[in-house]
């Protein structure tokens, strides 16, 4: 055990954690909207819209995140036309490519979580709203969405943790996030166990925080007070 290395690498890894957290929060923020959008499409009765939304979630859930990042980072740059548009400003940055890939990925999982949450809402609740003369739009925004969010909290908590682990893949497209810096320190010092303990400890700490925040929210918004 090299305690000195653990102590000296801790601030470096902590600095890299900021990058990880930025990637995570940005992709979760955009992914939640994307997921909600596709969950609503999934509930649409039109078969084409329905199949389109299903295809999106099937493709992004059926392929590894690494493939998705590589297609966006290495693949899209190959299209000559894209290089001339304003999109190239975004797509030439590994940071934004990673966020786009993570957003699309978490959006697919989130849409599945929200769809199943919408489907478990008892029809009686919607009927009760209707019989009170509330418009469909308000029923959706004030009744269905809050219940769906409460229902999907446990599954969404898991998704946040999975996504936090997923951000480690940003290190494969030259970003220096927590895993990227950990790998750099390991490959320069050849002390994998010490670095693993420190970096893994930081990840576990974040998992612990996320887990408890979700648990608190679940309790706060539970039906039985």
């Amino acid at each position, binding site marked *: 055990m090299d305690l000195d290395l653990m102590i000296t690498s801790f601030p470096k890894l902590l600095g890299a954690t900021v990058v990880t957290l930025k990637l995570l929060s940005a992709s979760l923020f955009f992914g939640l909207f994307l997921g909600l959008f596709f969950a609503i499409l999934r509930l649409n009765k039109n078969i084409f819209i329905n199949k389109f939304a299903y295809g999106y979630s099937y493709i992004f859930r059926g*392929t590894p995140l690494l493939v*998705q990042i590589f297609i966006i980072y290495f693949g899209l740059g190959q299209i000559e036309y894209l290089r001339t548009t304003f999109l190239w400003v975004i797509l030439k940055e590994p940071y934004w490519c990673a966020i786009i890939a993570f957003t699309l990925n978490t959006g697919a999982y989130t849409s599945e979580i929200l769809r199943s949450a919408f489907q478990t809402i008892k029809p009686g609740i919607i009927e009760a709203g209707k019989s009170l003369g509330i418009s469909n739009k308000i029923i959706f925004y004030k009744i269905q969405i809050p219940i769906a969010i409460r229902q999907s909290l446990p599954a969404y908590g898991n998704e946040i943790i999975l996504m936090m682990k997923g951000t*480690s893949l940003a290190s494969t497209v030259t970003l220096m996030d927590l*895993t990227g810096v950990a790998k750099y320190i390991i490959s320069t010092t050849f002390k994998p166990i010490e670095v*693993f303990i420190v970096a893994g400890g930081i990840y576990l700490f974040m998992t612990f925080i996320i887990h408890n925040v979700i648990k608190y929210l679940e309790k706060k918004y539970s039906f039985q007070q």
Partner: protein
Amino acid sequence: MELLAFGKTGWGDELFYATLMTIAVSITAMLVGFFFALIFTPLKLSKYKTLNLVGNFYTTVIRGVPELLVIYLFFFGGSGAIMYVASIFGYYEYIEINAFITGSMAIGIISGAYSTEVFRGAIQSIDKGQFEAAKVLGINKFGQFYKIILPQMLRLAIPNLSNVWQITLKDTSLISVTGLVEIMRQSYIAAGSTRDPLFFYSFAAVLYLLLTYVSMKLINKLEVKYSRGY
């Protein structure tokens, strides 16, 4: 299409073997995972607090730390650990472990943590009366587990194990960082030499989709088989 030709002109045969490699690593990792689950599930269900702690430590750490970090630990630390053990027995030469073994061990340990949770949940959801009835009938511990608990547990565990399989299959793409030539690594090589990353990475995505689709179909059959009578 000529990029995918078999033989020396295209990448078809290389990608085909790479796909076989992905399947081989996934199956090995899944079996390694079962082995770990076999050790850690009883620990998690044990009456003793210390054993519970060991079991929980394994599943919490592995499920809370990114897969890539675990793979780096094995990739950089694997041969060091083996050499350390070998040095105890008086062997000081450099030992290099095969990328296949490192990869399937790393993915196996990850998949084992998920399998452990699945088995724990399945066993816990079996009615207590089943255990008691088996005891009353005088069936020994071995028979209780293999003839009564296991068949019922499998029915409950298969849908969740199919999720673990999907996770494992997708995680194998990460061992491309260690240089093992599976789908992802082969696509990386092909993309580098033909300068056509869009095509090859998209093709890799199609291969993964195909693998997940076929395995889903096979698992569904298993599910039907084990839920006869329900």
